[in-house]
């Protein structure tokens, strides 16, 4: 694995095949510039269970959660893990359920990487990363096609079966990126959903059975969302022969591959995605799954307590 400066001579390292590539055609640009000595330091530290900031391999950075940061949204949260900062917002609008599943609401997740995080994200540059994060979050949180195993209970979003349901639009914004975006976004979405209040809807009685029944959306009363089933995402990054949790962007530049595993409170796996092109032995993947389950217990507890205290502060 060799790094070389580009032809134009400014400090601009091209990262090679084994590393995490953002796009098929351009490489991870200037996100991290690491000398050979720094790379060996990172890899050696991970091998000895002592990372650059003193953490152990399976320790998360301190997590800060604030809820209710966006007043116009139905629910919102901001989560910081070290220098990674993301904001998630949930907006609910009335819509029509799909004909294939008339008794379930709809949820759509979209992530946007802002150019404040990285200059490379300006314009279309962040599109590929945003699409990858959106897909990973959708497969982790929305379950199979039949709606089974979804972290969010879609049947609680229905107003009138077959006619009116709530459409949840979950939007994530990456404000600052220092690695481990997927975990942070997962935590932010969980916190935003805990903060979400769906307005109470009164259906006008006596409507005819065609087209649009009259609905009255209350401004006062809100139904809180039940988020005990929402999973958390744990990303295990493989550097050399060891796995670390919550990698910074420097550590991510040294990875061979990463697996993001979404685990819920019951210990069931709700989704797995692999990032990075290097091949991995199946037994390693199964090992990573069990490590992720173990780590997720602490993460879920920590996150729940942080969300609860953030909500309590919000009330005051």
């Amino acid at each position, binding site marked *: 694995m060799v790094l070389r400066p580009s032809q134009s001579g400014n400090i601009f390292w091209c990262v090679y095949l084994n590393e995490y590539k953002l796009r098929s*055609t351009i490489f991870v640009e200037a996100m991290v510039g690491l000398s050979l000595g720094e790379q060996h330091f990172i890899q050696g530290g991970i091998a000895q269970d002592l990372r650059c900031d003193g953490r152990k391999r399976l320790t998360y950075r301190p997590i800060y959660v604030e809820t209710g940061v966006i007043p116009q949204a139905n629910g919102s949260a901001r989560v910081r893990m070290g220098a990674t900062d993301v904001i998630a917002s949930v907006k609910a609008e009335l819509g029509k359920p799909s004909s294939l599943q008339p008794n379930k609401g709809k949820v759509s997740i979209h992530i946007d990487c802002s150019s404040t995080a990285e200059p490379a994200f300006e314009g279309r540059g962040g599109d590929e990363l945003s699409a*990858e994060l959106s897909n990973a979050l959708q497969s982790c949180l929305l379950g199979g096609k039949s709606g*089974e195993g979804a972290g969010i209970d879609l049947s609680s979003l229905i107003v009138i079966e077959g006619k009116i349901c709530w459409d949840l639009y979950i939007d994530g914004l990456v404000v600052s990126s220092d690695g481990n975006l997927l975990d942070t976004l997962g935590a932010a979405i969980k916190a935003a959903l805990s903060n979400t209040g769906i307005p109470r809807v009164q259906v006008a009685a006596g409507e005819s059975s065609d087209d649009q029944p009259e609905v009255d959306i209350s401004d006062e009363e809100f139904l809180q969302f039940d988020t005990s089933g929402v999973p958390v995402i744990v990303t295990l990054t493989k550097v050399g022969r060891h796995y670390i949790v919550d990698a910074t962007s420097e550590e991510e530049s040294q990875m061979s591959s990463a697996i993001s595993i979404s685990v819920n409170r019951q210990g069931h796996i709700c989704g797995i995605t692999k990032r990075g092109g290097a091949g991995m032995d199946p037994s390693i993947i199964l090992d990573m799954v069990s490590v992720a389950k173990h780590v997720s217990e602490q993460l879920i507890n920590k996150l729940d307590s942080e969300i609860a205290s953030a909500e309590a502060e919000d009330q005051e």
Partner: protein
Amino acid sequence: MAGKGGSAPATYSPSPTVQKKKTSIFQEDWVRPDGRGFHQCRPAFFRTGAVNAASGSAYAEFGNTKIIVSVFGPRESKKAMMYSDIGRLNCNVSYTTFASPVRGQGSDHKEYTAMLHKALEGAIILESFPKTTVDVFALVLESGGSDLPVVISCASLALADAGIMMYDLVASVSVSCLSKNLVIDPIFEEENSQDGSLMITCMPSRYEITQLTFTGEWSTPKIDEGMQLCLDACAKLAKIMRSCLKEAASDSQE
């Protein structure tokens, strides 16, 4: 359909559509429409050299899923791209408008392009074609279920046909979870009502997984079982792919 002598010209009338009973899939004893067992894949048909203009191409047909992949390259990278010591891979997966039962509905699989790229990049020796780009274009002619795994397998065959150096062929299989039953190589109906799915892309000879996606809720024993099923199926699929390449090579020698 055959014309009768002397009478008015026969018009084509489609065969009367049998109203298919919508069997509830949520029974435990789901019987697969094509009579396969739960752990039985569809018969695989591969043919290389389907497109003459391309450097390499392959056609795959698994039941009702028909895919054609063409590979162009290595070609000069666009001038706007930066210099790179290793080659680039550019993928695209597109659906024809007649691919899905309802016209135009198959095109909401934009993530397939990124997933095809991730599945192939670990297997290609990019150092063997520096400064150039290899383009892989996949076209789904008919979508009968389990599209992405077939696209990936067909693409690796097309790359082999084009002579691009690879560490190993890439075989891919998906498994659907239908209320406690694990069903391999699902068809369109089974995919639409699945409770969870697992797709594995692996390099069978090296026994390495290049891409792995789980959706839905899985317990650990099910994960083990699903992965084992997929890996076995991938090994068998790789044998079929190799025999197709050997046939094509021996045909061209004659």
